[in-house]
Each structure stands twice: as C-alpha cells, then as structure tokens.
C-alpha cells in the first residue's frame, strides 16, 4: 500500500492522463502469483450460487402458466441451437486466444479475442431478438410466474454475457496500449474463466429451461 501512494505522484508526472492500468510492484506477485486467480474463481462460485437460486425459482414456478402461453408455444428450439453454437464457438476461440497469449503473440491474442467478441455479440443479438419477439407477442414477465422466472433467469445470463463483452473490449484496448504485460495476461486469464463459466451456465439453461420446457 505504501508503494502505491509513493507511486501515485510519480505516475502522474510520467503521464498526465489516468489510463486505468494499475501496475503492481514486482515483489507482490512472486509470493502471491495465484491469489487473484483463486479470488476470481471464488467469485465465480458465488455467481454459480446466484444462478442456482434462479434455477430453483424456475424449477418451482416454471409450470405456473396462469392460463398464458407455455414453453412449447413460445420457444423456437432452432434459434436456441444457433445461440448455443455461437457461445460454444466463442468458447473455443477464447481458448485459441489463450494459446496465442501463451506463445506471446499480441496480434494473435487480439485477433482471437476480437473473434470471441463477435460470437458473443451474435449470441446477444439473438437473445435480444428473442426477448423483443416475446415482448411483442405479449409474453412479458408480467404475464405469468413462468414468464417472470424465465425472464429473470435468461435475462441475468444475458446481462452477464453483456458485461463480459464490455470487459473484452476494455481488455483489447489495454492490450493494444500496454501489450501482453503480466497484469494483462492475468486479466485475460480471469476473463477466460468468466467466459467459459457463462457457457457452462448456458448448458444448464438450454437443457433445463428450453429443451425440458418444450417437452413438459
């Protein structure tokens, strides 16, 4: 902490703008190399509990249609299959970004991260299209308990993907400006966990909400 306050004015004289890139002192990550990664992993586990509760809510309320539409009336499974593959492709391209990062290729990392972002945006676009369509035909969260929990669960997942996409853009800028520094590598590794975790949650969403939903 004392280092950070000592560095503050020094940094300010080096560059007049604040560029949101916190440089850690070399001493710290010799001893706590994996501290941030484990901390981020624990955050993901708490996020997993949040989704678990939303799944429990959907399990309890998912069949209370209140004389409104049921999953079989609403869901287009072909569209969900395309969404699923958008996320799956983005997972494998993020893997390629990690491999390019290991090989120290800045351009390769950026290119694969950008491809991942495009697939992520494709997924978000399909989600927004689906939600807009549902809203338009009157299947709003207010229509039934089933639709309330559906919008809450799938919406929360969508918001996570949107947050991941924003984080991805920020990291692309950081890598462009500062290169593949130790800090940026760790940040890319954290987003990798986040991104793959969201794909994992989506597996539960399409299995439980969509595929099981249309069968019941």
């Amino acid at each position, binding site marked *: 902490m004392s280092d950070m306050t000592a560095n503050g004015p020094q940094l300010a004289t080096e560059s007049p703008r604040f560029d949101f890139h916190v440089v850690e002192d070399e001493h710290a990550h010799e001893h706590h*190399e*994996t501290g941030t*990664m*484990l901390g981020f*992993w*624990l955050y993901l*586990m708490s996020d*997993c*509990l949040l989704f*678990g*509760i939303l*799944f*429990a*809510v959907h*399990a*309890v309320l998912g069949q209370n249609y209140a004389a409104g539409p049921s999953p079989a009336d609403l869901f287009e*499974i*072909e569209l*969900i*299959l395309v969404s*699923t*593959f958008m996320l*799956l492709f983005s*997972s*494998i391209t993020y*893997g*390629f970004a*990690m*491999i390019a*990062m*290991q090989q120290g290729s800045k351009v390769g990392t950026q290119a694969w991260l950008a491809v991942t972002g495009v697939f992520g945006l494709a997924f978000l676009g399909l989600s927004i299209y689906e939600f807009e369509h549902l809203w338009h035909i009157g299947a709003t969260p207010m229509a039934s308990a089933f639709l309330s929990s559906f919008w809450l669960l799938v919406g929360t997942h969508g918001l996570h993907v949107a947050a991941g996409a924003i984080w991805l853009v920020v990291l692309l800028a950081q890598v462009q400006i500062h290169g593949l520094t130790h800090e940026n590598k760790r940040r890319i*590794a954290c987003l*990798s*966990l986040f991104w*793959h*975790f969201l*794909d*994992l949650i989506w*597996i*539960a969403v*399409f*299995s*439980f909400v969509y*595929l*099981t939903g*249309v*069968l*019941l």
Partner: protein
Amino acid sequence: MSDQAHGSLKSYGIGFALSVVLTLIPFGLVLGGALEDNVGWAIAIIFLFGGAQIMVHVYYFLHVTLGAEDGWQAMSLAFTGMLLVIILAGSIWVMFHLEENMMPAHELIERVEQLP
C-alpha cells in the same frame, strides 16, 4: 502459472468436439421428436447429456484439476456443488409439498373421498 493451467490446442479441441456432440444429441432428440411419447426418458437423457457437457467444460475449458491452487479450486467447486444440491433439491421438495397441501379445497375433498 504453468502452461498446463491454460490448456493446449489438443485439450481445447477435445473439449470442443465433445461439447458439439453432447449439444447436438439432446437438441436432435427434441427437434426430431424422438421419445415424444416417453417424456420422462427424454428429460432424463437431456439432463444426463447436460451434466456430461458441464463436466467437459469444467475439465477442458476451466481446467479444474485436483492439484490446481493447492486443491482449493476443486474444493470450492465441490462445496458449491453441495450447496447447489441442497438449494435445488430442498426448494423443489419443499415447494412440491407446499403446493400439494395448498390444493383448492374441492380437490382435497375429492382426494379424501377416494381414500380406501
């Protein structure tokens, strides 16, 4: 962090191939209309493949191993899994019984009348 922690081209490839297969089978089952008259089995298969794909993602994409982070990663995952089982099974169990007992009176009376 070792290279092992980030995975290799081969491990990502295996994970991706398994995921594609494990995604296509349950979707094919629902889209193709197979097992339409046996919904219980269809749902069991969907859950089985979903669970398998989650395992694949945890191992090949999230790179969780028993040794990573001195075991804390696998330990926290197992603990989270335990909490999820309690939350999900507990909620479904309790709410199912609550719904049974909150049944509209006429249905309850019918059921009592049909008791042996």
